[in-house]
């Protein structure tokens, strides 16, 4: 019997041995409530119609599938296609999920929105939908990240959100998530927590995946129209893994379509300074689910490093952990310098400036293309645009802007 993938998670939120509900007791009731509400609305025609309308009219979907002909020519291998999530409102795939979750929050009668953010993309996407719906919004962000992502902090403030600086632990994304959980525990009655990736306790990994699945659904349709068949391979970067899950999931039963998740190799796996949870972490429990976690010998979660703040997370969505163990998807790494080179390459060759997160996917996609033939097709998820990273790139290259 061939293995089925599209029926997960199971009733208890598990993907094989991963996922689940490792939450503090105070949160159980609202997680149950959320699960029930989502189950009902997932198949509710009005809700889905509203979601589709918002994706079309507010986000600007569908996003194009773009044939990168000059890159293809350069690599002399497979045809390279880019899924242009960078063209969405707010500049990344993150908005797909926040548009979905805020509708759920409204339907559940919640008055207050909280979120965590690392690079600020999810924070901006959350502040955006909260502004549109007229709901109060608090975004938790590590003090270190606030420092390095000043523009996104200001964008959130302009949108009316309160950005709370998190001073605990490593003062980055994982600590922002802890702090948001603490807020939620204290305000469970009126607060909806919009988690930004396919992690957290059930039902978040499933829900965030579903809201992002519009990416893969569009690619199915577009590839049939533009290529005449499904692509041979899909490539996406993986921090928590929401853009990758969104691209992969609609293809999960099409075994001929290979899938590659690209983790942040940072300064190289051998240096320990990276964020490659699947490639170099071990099975553990963090933020409410069992998955691959970067931790030391004592089980303390370790600090991660990546040139891109959005991949700088010591865990990974449990469904990715499962796809890795079953061999359905392969997880590889790209180092900081390779991502930076891909950032320049795409910018100069195609006139598209990618986010440094997405540049990891581009870098691996280019390598992969070289090993394939011109009759084959690769779709790379261009999950976000690079404007937010211009300062980082300039800094690294010693240019003052």
């Amino acid at each position, binding site marked *: 019997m061939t293995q089925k993938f599209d029926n997960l998670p199971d009733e208890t939120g598990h993907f094989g041995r991963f996922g*689940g*509900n*490792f939450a503090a007791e105070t949160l*159980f009731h609202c997680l149950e409530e959320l699960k029930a509400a989502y189950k009902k609305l997932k198949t509710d025609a009005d809700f889905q119609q509203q979601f589709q309308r918002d994706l079309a009219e507010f986000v600007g979907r569908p996003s194009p599938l773009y044939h990168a002909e000059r890159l293809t020519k350069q690599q002399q291998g497979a045809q390279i296609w880019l899924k242009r999530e960078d063209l969405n409102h707010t500049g990344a795939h993150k908005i797909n999920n926040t548009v979905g979750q805020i509708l759920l929050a409204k339907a559940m009668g919640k008055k207050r929105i909280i979120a965590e953010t690392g690079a600020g993309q999810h924070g901006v996407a959350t502040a955006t939908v909260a502004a549109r719906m007229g709901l109060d919004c608090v975004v938790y962000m590590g003090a270190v990240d606030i420092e390095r992502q000043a523009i996104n902090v200001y964008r959130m403030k302009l949108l009316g959100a309160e950005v709370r600086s998190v001073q605990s632990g490593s003062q980055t994304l994982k600590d922002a998530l802890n702090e948001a959980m603490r807020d939620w*525990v*204290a305000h469970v009655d009126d607060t909806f927590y919009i988690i930004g990736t396919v992690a957290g306790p059930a039902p978040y990994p499933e829900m965030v995946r579903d809201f992002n699945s519009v990416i893969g659904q569009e690619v199915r349709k577009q590839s049939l129209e533009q290529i005449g068949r499904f692509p041979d391979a899909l490539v996406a970067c993986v921090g928590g893994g929401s853009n990758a899950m969104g691209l992969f999931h609609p293809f999960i039963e099409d075994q001929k379509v290979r899938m590659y998740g690209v983790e942040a190799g940072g300064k190289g796996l051998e240096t320990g300074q990276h964020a490659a949870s699947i490639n170099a972490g071990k099975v553990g429990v963090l933020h409410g689910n069992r998955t691959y976690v970067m931790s030391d*010998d004592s089980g303390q*979660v370790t600090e991660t490093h990546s040139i891109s703040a959005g991949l700088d997370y010591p865990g990974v969505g449990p469904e990715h952990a499962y796809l890795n163990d079953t061999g359905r998807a392969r997880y590889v790494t790209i180092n900081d310098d390779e991502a930076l080179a891909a950032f320049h390459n795409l910018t100069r060759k195609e006139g598209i400036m990618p986010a440094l997160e997405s540049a990891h996917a581009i870098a691996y996609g280019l390598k992969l293309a070289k090993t394939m033939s011109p009759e084959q097709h690769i779709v790379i998820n261009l999950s976000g645009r690079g404007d937010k990273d211009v300062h980082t790139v300039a800094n690294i290259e010693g240019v003052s802007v």
Partner: protein
Amino acid sequence: MSFIDQKFNSLAGKKALIPFMTAGFPKPDMTVPMMHYLVENGADIIELGMPFSDPMADGPVIQKASEKAIQQGVNLVQTLQMVSQFRQDNQHTPVVLMGYLNPVESMGYEKFVNSAAGAGVNGVLLVDSPPEESAELQSHLKKHQLEQIFLVAPTTSEARKKFICQQAGGFIYYVALKGVTGAADLNPEIVNQEIKQLKQYTALPIAVGFGVKDAASAVAVAAQADAVVIGSALIQQLLGCQDKHSAKKAISDFMRPIRLALDSL
């Protein structure tokens, strides 16, 4: 009968006082002496915190204590050694380890339970390991008669309270407020009502914690409960202690009034 059961039986209706302290805080070599001071000043059971990098259910005070302990090299192995050392001079005070699952998973359930039992631990409370996810761990704990203690929160549904009570051992830990450890807005009236209700589902003793900070709040929530847990407020007192002598005084000053107040009930 387990060691924790025996302890509650021996109290014969007296309210149990359960201080919480993070292992390795403020300094690693102070933990064992401080455990003895706690007993000398009225502790019936000790909850010892296993330091963790991401304590998502804890407020700022316990977060800081955990961070400081880790900085000084105190992890799960060292925490177990401390219990073992404490046991050399104390065989009558149950010790419950409290913390998060990842360090335990990292060590491996079997090794953890064997080491904990060997060190003289009597119970384990893992904030992020609810009964639904604890089957494998429980099978190991049972082999060594270690109790797994579970939390019940103000938001826990009636059906789930029954379920948790069936799974729990040692005592039930009732979370007195919606929030993290050490938060401020405690409502004793509601707490007492909730605990009274909870007693319909279990014969186990019920401890109440989160937000209890002094003799007055301890007495206020102890009307129905069998035990009171105090953590953040105790750790707050220990913040400035540089050595075991100052810790001894701080513990005595803090614990005595609470012990006296509980005994007057």
